[in-house]
């Protein structure tokens, strides 16, 4: 598969009155053509800042790109001037946001909002733009598109508005779609529809998707690869199967255990959570950012940031437990245990 986006050692900081917030620290990953890559993490893990950096949407200042490169077809986005960035935004990389209720301009018809990017990037006439925008509304399955075209956002429901957002982001056939928590603000029943729609459109227009979310349930259905972020760093990365069943990082285990499941019975009937709070990014710890909340933490975890250990093919885990001298700890998640049980049963039969 062809690489279309390469992020190398990205460091993003925010200069505030209280000091420098190191939101993204030494993040590297690649994006391949046609794939869906999920970036998972809790609030404040740096996943949104990372995604917005790809089209330089973080306000500068206070945001500052301290180091690293973001290569789109080999060209560094961080070197681009504002004018050049405007040509990339919306045309090569589209983005949809978390809250469809506030992400559309309330005083402009949805049709016009879709046409805007088209007229900016492809310099087409108004009538032509209208035709394409109508086609987009049809593609995102908005019923009665001719009529809805001239309506305002407040006449649409949340799910419909997110469809409009998708239409806006995809109208110029971008190579990359960044979806920043696209389903978080929606009803669960609508979430699945939106995810399915994104999947369908991805196949149609062959775009790569970067899916930012904190919901592993969302990821399981849509992504081929997963990056887990914590405290501004990538703590684990691998294919969806590797992360779900063969994770080698205690934070990922915590995340997986926090997903409420109907098929796994729990004795006490309580939901699991990860104890503690994320690290202070004004003064990030020099060791592993998760060490303070990690039940397996060792002395070295607090002193030295673990490297990305290779824990499988294209599977990397930044945890000292994977060092050859570390005590052997098995993946304790219920989902992994269930899998092992099933494997044992299979062998017995």
């Amino acid at each position, binding site marked *: 598969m062809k690489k279309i986006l390469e992020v190398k050692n990205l460091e993003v900081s925010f200069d505030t009155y209280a000091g420098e917030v190191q939101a993204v620290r030494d993040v590297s990953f690649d994006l391949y053509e046609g794939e869906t890559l999920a970036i998972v993490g809790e609030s404040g893990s740096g996943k949104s800042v990372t995604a917005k950096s790809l089209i330089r949407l973080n306000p500068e200042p206070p945001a500052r790109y301290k180091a690293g490169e973001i290569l789109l077809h080999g060209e560094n986005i961080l070197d681009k001037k504002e004018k050049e960035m405007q040509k990339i*935004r919306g045309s090569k990389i589209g983005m949809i946001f978390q*809250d469809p209720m506030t992400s559309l301009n309330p005083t402009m018809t949805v049709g016009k909002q879709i046409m805007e990017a088209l007229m900016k990037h492809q310099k087409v006439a108004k009538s032509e733009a209208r035709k394409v925008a109508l086609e987009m509304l049809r593609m995102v399955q908005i019923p009665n598109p001719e009529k809805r075209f001239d309506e*305002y956002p407040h006449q649409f429901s949340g799910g419909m508005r997110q469809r409009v*957002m998708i239409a806006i982001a995809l109208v110029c056939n971008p190579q990359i779609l960044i979806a920043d928590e696209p389903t978080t603000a929606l009803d669960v029943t609508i979430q699945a529809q939106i995810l399915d729609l994104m999947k369908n459109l991805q196949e149609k227009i062959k775009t790569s998707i970067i899916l930012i979310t904190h919901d592993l349930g969302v990821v399981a259905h849509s992504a081929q690869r997963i990056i887990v972020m914590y405290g501004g760093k990538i703590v684990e990365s691998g294919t969806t199967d590797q992360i779900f069943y063969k994770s080698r990082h205690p934070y990922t285990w915590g995340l997986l255990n926090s997903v409420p499941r109907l098929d796994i019975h729990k004795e006490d009937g309580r939901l699991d959570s990860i104890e503690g709070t994320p690290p202070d990014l004004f003064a990030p710890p020099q060791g592993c950012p998760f060490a303070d909340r990690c039940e397996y933490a060792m002395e070295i975890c607090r002193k030295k940031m673990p490297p990305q250990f290779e824990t499988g093919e294209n599977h990397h885990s930044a945890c000292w437990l994977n060092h050859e001298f570390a005590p052997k700890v098995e993946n304790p998640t219920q989902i992994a245990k269930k899998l092992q049980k099933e494997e044992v049963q299979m062998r017995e039969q």
Partner: protein
Amino acid sequence: MLKYILKRLLMALATLWVISTLTFVLMHALPNDPFTDPKLKPEVRQALRVKYGLDKPLSEQYVIYMKNLLKGDLGTSIKYPGRSVSDIIAESFPKSFALGWRALIIAVIFGMLLGIIAALNHQKTLDYLSIFIAIIGVSIPSIILGPILAYFFGVKLGWFPVTVDKSEISLFLPSLTLAMSSLATISRLMRTTTLEVLGQDYISTAKAKGLSKTQIVLKHVLRNAVMPIITILGPLFAALITGSIVVEKIFAVAGLGEYFVSTITEQDYPMIMGITIFYAALIILSILVVDIMYGFIDPRLRISGKGGE
């Protein structure tokens, strides 16, 4: 929409009735009447009172006035005998109006411009400069600002005439003086709302589409930021038209503003009533116009029509 406007007009009539009744009662509650001059002989005074119908009981006077009002007759002035109140308003109001709408336009255009520039340069030099202008505009009263402007631009530089004649240019200095405090208010308000809109999610959406800063401001910020300005436009317009007494004095404009004050001290009953009702009607009308304008600017506030609330 038509039904809404009709309903509002009916409500306006009711409001006007309440205002005129209140004014009528309060006016007559004052201890004197227009003919309390001690130099007047009691017989003459009595004769004048009979002539203007002031000898009748108050309730009867009220009924007579209201009947005339319904016919559109505001009566004749006591201070300026032989001139009807409507004539005096018709003659002097256009002069106040000429100042008022020019001041409004200056205040709205430059106020908004200043506010947007300040917001786009948040916490930079241009922002602080606009705050400085706004503070000056609000804190220097027109009684000081008027003579200063007249002295520098009129007398020293000789760019503008210092008294108002028939020429357009002579209206500039008084309009600017009148506009200054409203301009400052609008610029502060515009700065705040623009900053608020700039932080909205849909501005990120617009940016993510690849629009330039100018396109974002023109297409996405302005229309959303202008709502609070529209809200104060009605009262502002009324204030600019009625609040021009000082400016009219400084620049020698024979407008309605002066009558507004003098008729009260002279207790010229028909004039007090006439001018109050006229101003009240003007304010009610401008507020109605503003309410209708909302719908044009913000589709969420549209009355009836397709899918509105």
